[in-house]
């Protein structure tokens, strides 16, 4: 038995960890991304990927999408903590289920000889990727799909001159006529 020296150091969480996509609507002001990212690192939450862009040019609102992992209570805590940030006015979390849509974008460059180029193009065509640039020895395709599908696409291309990969994190949106309301309990 290891002797425990300091008080209250045991962690006793038994909940399962799930992947969640947090969507955070913020005022697009300087330092806001640092506030959100700092909250995650400061409280020990994980950021798997992060995507941010202004979505409302008049009100200067940006939508930050963060893929993270956590138990149910951790996800609830992240939401509550995010809502305490002054420039944050709306937070939603999405899980991989039939209620939401997820999309990621990948740009992929292939550089190879003529023989492999043909094989690579065949794979691209079967996945329905879009060609953005082609030369005699290379091409760039754009592919947007789910994370799993992009992973599969990359795996198949790998033996045929895959040279560079650029990927966004996921974007998420609720299916149907639902939109995220401004959260209750937002207090200044």
């Amino acid at each position, binding site marked *: 038995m290891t002797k425990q020296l300091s*008080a*209250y150091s045991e962690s006793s969480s038994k909940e399962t960890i799930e992947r969640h996509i947090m969507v955070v609507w913020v005022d697009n002001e300087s330092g806001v991304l640092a*506030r959100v990212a700092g909250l995650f690192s400061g409280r020990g939450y994980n950021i798997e990927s992060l995507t941010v862009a202004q979505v409302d040019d008049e009100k200067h609102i940006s939508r930050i999408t963060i893929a993270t992992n956590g138990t149910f209570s951790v996800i609830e*805590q992240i939401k509550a903590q995010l*809502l305490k940030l*002054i420039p944050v006015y709306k937070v939603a979390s999405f899980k991989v289920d039939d209620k939401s849509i997820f999309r990621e974008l990948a740009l992929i460059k292939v550089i190879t000889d003529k023989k492999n180029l043909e094989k690579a193009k065949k794979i691209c065509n079967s996945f329905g990727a879009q060609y953005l640039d082609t030369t005699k020895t290379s091409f760039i395709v754009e592919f947007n799909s789910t994370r799993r599908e992009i992973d599969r696409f990359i795996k198949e291309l790998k033996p045929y001159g895959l040279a560079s990969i650029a990927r966004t994190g996921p974007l998420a949106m609720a299916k149907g006529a639902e939109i995220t309301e*401004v959260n209750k309990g937002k*207090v200044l």
Partner: protein
Amino acid sequence: MSKQLTGAEIVFKALADHDVEYIFGYPGGAVLPLYDELVKHKNIKHILVRHEQGAGHAAEGYARSSGKPGVVLVTSGPGATNMVTALTDAYMDSIPLVCITGQVPTHLIGTDAFQECDTTGITRPCTKHNWLVKDIKDLPTIIHKAFHIATSGRPGPVLVDIPKDIQFQKTEYIKKEDVIKKINKVATDINSKEIEKIADLIVKSKKPIIYSGGGVINSGDKACELLKDLVRITGFPITSTLQGLGAYPGEDHQFVGMLGMHGTYEANNAMHDCDLMINIGARFDDRITGKIDKFSPRSKKIHIDIDPSSINKIIKVDHAIVGDVGNVLNKLIVVFKKKYPNFKNSNKENISEWWKQINKWREKDSLAFSQGNKTIKPQYAIQRLYELTKNQDTFITTEVGQHQMWAAQYYKFQKPKRWMTSGGLGTMGFGLPAAIGVQLANPKKLVVDIAGEASILMNIQELSTAVQYRLPVKIFIINNQYMGMVRQWQELLHEKNYSESYSEALPDFVKLAEAYGAVGIRAQTPDELDTKIKQMLKSDKPVLFDCRVEKVENCFPMIPSGKAHNEMILGAKDEKDTKISKQGKVLV
């Protein structure tokens, strides 16, 4: 077109708009335009501290004892970094502070200029919000918002970083009201159904406990009155966190003492065995809960808190109401009185067994200690201080460590805002500057900093501030020549390996006091203690009181490592009992 004002003028106009009486600060290159302006404002008094951290804690003391925000003005670079501890302290204990820092001129930002630092970057995690003012036009709005955010919802510190060139530039002033009315406030309605449910749970409970915290004090004096009202109409026992002391009178029979790591036996056992826990404005801090798995296993839990992120953060509760404690209590009491008039008498029998049990726990007398006739016991020193000061309205601040816990245990607070201690962050060096702020907010009142000889040395330079402004704060040092709490943990948990916890070369505190122009008093034996304390109280100057106490006294009762509320180690008396002593050893 209305008048154009400089940035510095705008800052002071806004401070006046927010009825600021005192600024705690320290000048420097990047705030000189603000200090130029300061002399023109006779209604705003500047308190020159000796170290910026002192300014922060003094502002906290002012805020904690007055309910108004504390204001700090410091320079860029080291001025700002020295404020980090105080900002973090205020953030942890929900104290409203508005900190104004100077910054290098905008065109020098990012060039590693002299006394430049990324102030907003450094203070982002330790403020509720902060701003770097890049455009003079934003300045009036930002200052008003700063005050609003610091004081609304769950209060906390905010920081406004103003580059030197912005302090010189001119723009039009915007009035406070014009800014505040534009702030988007999302009102939180109190859920009436939840209130009804809570009222019904109160009626059904056979073993209830009310557990109140600093949120009640932050909510205001009205909330404290309502808390008393709730306790009175229910006849329930009440315990309090460290921060909540004083919200409910400490001498009242229904008060079972502080709970948590160094709480009373009766409070912690009542928390463990209760069937209904009503948490009012507390946050299930780790010093309160002990081992989470074993925390009050058989109770329904109700949580009232203004901060939604406090709900279910550590302990899952059955019913939560997010809102200002005062508003929630008001609604609850109205509903309860209407639904269950004369509840206290009709319910007496229902909870009589519970009270019997609590009184049995009380008989353990977990705060007992034995005072011999040679050396002063620290508990005795605080008990005597209490007895000799309880008849006047006394304000107590503390540093951090054993003396802080003993003060919480043996000093009984009858009113809110009389107890200012660094609870969340546990900042040694808090007490003296805090006492200065308290004394300014409460000019004629007795203010005592109960200190340890190690803690006091962390901000001793502020004694000079107390002397300069003739603030007769009393610094009551419980001097055991050890970092007592460190020593206690080393004794109990690290096999008496007293690594670096003994102070080899302490100053002569009496001479030190005299060097600063204050009064030094020393007490060494129990029979001279009362006379010396009286001598301290009579003095109209700041006093440094060197109370020499038993060196190796431990602070009991205590919940040891990873244990539950019902597994406390009791005091010296208990240690002698071989049976419990064995268990005690297994516990640590």
